[in-house]
């Protein structure tokens, strides 16, 4: 079982690493998004400073939304998922490895580069730590919440727009708490972080299970 898990984890990592489109897509999209904000705000540094954190969160949201589409798509279209089901490979392994690899290749780079982007958007450096933690709790939630929705829309016509429309309402609370958390971090209140942590721990338990159920149902 553990062997199988690592086999699949390796497989998912390989699929990201070998396909340079896939691995660089999220982070390069993030970069482009971040670029847009200073360009559209013009020369007003004040405005940029105030909105730096929010802009980074918005970019994180968008790059996650965009990368969600490819989450199960290839395996579903090639019939590989069906093959797994016939071969009785537990879907829990597939779902968990998919989630981990998705986070590693879309969430993690964003978390690590976020302090640089904060400087880039002339945000105050005291926010860097707060932003780091809020992204650390927030981005796994994006991956976790995106999974069941990506699984739901498998086989739908016009999947891309549907996926974005369905995931936005679920992503909204995270982005709200994420941004609020950074703002109250400096004043020493961590309530938003606790809340994000609580949502994260509940989601880690429930959402993979729901995703497995959905996948099984869609391949019945």
């Amino acid at each position: 079982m553990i062997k199988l898990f690592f086999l699949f984890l390796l497989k998912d990592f390989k699929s990201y690493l070998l396909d340079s489109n896939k691995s660089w897509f999220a982070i390069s999209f993030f970069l482009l998004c971040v670029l847009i904000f200073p360009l559209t705000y013009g020369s007003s540094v004040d405005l940029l400073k105030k909105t730096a954190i929010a802009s980074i969160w918005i970019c994180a949201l968008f790059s996650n939304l965009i990368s969600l589409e490819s989450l199960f798509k290839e395996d579903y279209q090639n019939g590989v998922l069906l093959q797994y089901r016939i071969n009785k490979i537990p879907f829990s392994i597939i779902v968990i490895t998919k989630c981990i690899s998705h986070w590693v290749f879309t969430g993690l780079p964003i978390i690590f580069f976020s302090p640089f982007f904060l400087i880039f958007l002339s945000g105050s450096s005291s926010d860097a730590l707060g932003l780091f933690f809020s992204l650390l709790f927030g981005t796994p939630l994006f991956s976790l919440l995106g999974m069941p929705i990506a699984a739901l829309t498998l086989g739908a016509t016009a999947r891309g727009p549907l996926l974005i429309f369905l995931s936005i309402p679920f992503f909204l609370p995270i982005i709200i708490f994420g941004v609020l958390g950074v703002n109250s971090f400096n004043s020493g209140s961590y309530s938003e972080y606790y809340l994000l942590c609580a949502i994260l721990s509940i989601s880690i338990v429930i959402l993979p299970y729901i995703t497995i159920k959905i996948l099984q149902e869609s391949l019945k």
Partner: protein
Amino acid sequence: MLELKNIEVVYNEVVLVIKGLSLEVKEGEIVSLLGANGAGKSTTLKAVSGLLKNEDGEVTKGNICFLDEEITNSNPSEIVKSGLFQVMEGRRCIADMTVLENLRLGAHTRRDRKNINDDIEKVLNYFPRLKERNGLSGYLSGGEQQMLAIGRALMAKPKIILMDEPSMGLSPLLVKEVFGIIKKLNEELGITILLVEQNARLALNVSNRAYIMENGKIVLEGSSKVLANNEDVKEFYLGGSKGERKSFKNLKSYKRRKRWL
């Protein structure tokens, strides 16, 4: 070994795709199922292997027996366990895994873990091309992927393999090789094979018996040699004489058959 009795397949609860189809595959045979596009060949295979539900289809009448046990509408993984494996249409390899890993996954359901390495060796002996490939299976050519798919089916130690268009999208040379392997598997391992093909000439060459389908019904059946010499088959499937494509319904042999029913 495998017997389909008068089955009827309905999609989405309303669309009738297969009407009263019966066929039989005896042990050790290669049986081919021929027919034009949309005749219901793939649907028949899916009905047997339990994959119909994935497309909202259902066997509503008749029954399917495998090794004297009824498997109508049962779970695909249960059917695989009982020794029936379907090699699906198109490329169905896990692209980001190596050939060996792919083969190992095929043996995932098996209990005898120790023999797996020996079996991989054995399977690879049938596919000398795959032996040389160490990279990811996503980089294999279409023919090699088809071979890998067959090899993975072999890893599950099936008694019967259903193949859905193994020649699709392959170069003529590779098609020959694949069919040679199919024949070899049948002769040396004694695996029964039900083959669905559009390439009738090749399929008739390797198979013992054949069925010809049209519009969800079997219109002709018999030993491959007889069918290959049948005028109608020659006309439609082997490209014997150039003429306008007529339906089987207008032909004598079909009318004769209809009287039996």
